[in-house]
């Protein structure tokens, strides 16, 4: 599988496209979909794991993108970053609402996620990701893994507790400390 280079991933060329979508240009919307759907689907599928549910959710996400395109502000986020926030929020709402694959019932589903490994090892990274990664590397290894599992696999505190065999209370306080450490490290 080829991965997008950071410059493409940041999607500078998408800004004019977003502007046209905000003006209700359906051709631009189709082009935006062609250029971004695999990326968003990757995010949604990684969280939801089931293709049927993920494709249903992806449809809702693009309807939202169409309806909210006029709210996009190029000074605050890249188009792909803005769309990824919509996609993650929708996928997380879905995964919390009804767990499509129970970790207890389908250990092989969990296995797939684990085998997928640490996505951070895979690619040429943008400056923002490199900076974030340096800060993540300052966390204790198991806490770093908990943060990444939460983000990539959409696990709740309870699910993290089961996967990493720690009490929920411990997971919660580790998450909180890790978040504050990350915030202070990133200096934003």
């Amino acid at each position, binding site marked *: 599988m080829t991965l997008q280079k950071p410059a493409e991933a940041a999607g500078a060329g998408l800004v004019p496209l977003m502007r046209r979508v905000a003006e209700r240009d359906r051709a631009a919307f189709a082009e935006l979909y062609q250029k971004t759907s695999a990326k968003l689907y990757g995010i949604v599928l990684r969280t939801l794991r089931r293709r049927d549910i993920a494709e249903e959710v992806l449809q809702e996400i693009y309807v939202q993108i169409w309806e909210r395109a006029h709210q996009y502000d190029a000074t605050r986020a890249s188009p792909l970053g803005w769309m990824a926030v919509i996609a993650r929020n929708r996928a997380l709402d879905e995964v*919390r609402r009804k767990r499509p694959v129970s970790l207890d019932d389908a250990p092989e589903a969990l296995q797939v996620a684990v085998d997928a490994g640490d996505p951070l090892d895979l690619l040429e990274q943008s400056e923002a990701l490199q900076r974030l990664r340096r800060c993540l590397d300052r966390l204790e290894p198991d806490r770093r893994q908990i943060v990444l599992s939460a983000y990539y696999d959409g696990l*709740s505190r309870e699910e993290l507790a089961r996967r990493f065999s720690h009490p929920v209370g411990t997971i919660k306080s580790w998450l909180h400390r890790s978040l*504050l450490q990350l915030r202070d490290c990133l200096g934003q």
Partner: protein
Amino acid sequence: MTDRDEIDVVAGEFVLGTLDAGERASVAARRQREEALDAAIKAWEQRLGALGEAVPPVAPDAGLLSKIEARIDARAMAGPLTDQVVTLERRARRWRRIAVAASALAACLLIAIGVREVTRPQTAGIYTAVFQKDDASPAFLLTVNLDTRVLSIRAVAAQPQPGKSYQLWIVSDKLGGVPRSLGLIEAKHVPVSHPLPGYERAVVETATFGISLEPAGGSPTGRPTGPAFHAKLIAASR
């Protein structure tokens, strides 16, 4: 932890995705009224957003775009206002500030916003107004189509009140500056159309609108008598 830390861990967990369904819903509701929380969530989206780069793309089913387009068409057909609801929710915070300022003027009557605040939407001749029940939720959505001379009103958060009627008013200096009734409106969650009386275009474009809660059957005096709804005229798009 400091107050800022408290907000940042809640916002951070929201973005990280570790909250359960109830907590997620509660944070999503709180961010609508707590600007600090909303800002903290946006900051975390910035901080963690780069992680998304590392997720490998996966091509969805080839037929998905046409399904999405069909959904968009279906929603557009459902009513001229459907698309705007999202816009309106996002603007709630700004309206709230306007509403607070406007409340001072509201003595007993209507609060409305001059149409001059409205920029002309892409569909020429169509204006939209939001009538809020309170500071938190839009109550009615009004569209005025000056080309077809139809006004369409739809309840969003408003409920029918037993023994009471909602009445729509127009006020314009060109109409003597006193509220004129545009008729009773129903608190229905689908758009209900009414003919727009034969006021001149320029009158309607510069008029203000309001909704008041009246005894059943409408105001006995021909003027608003009951509590009024805040009315905000906004562009139908953009």
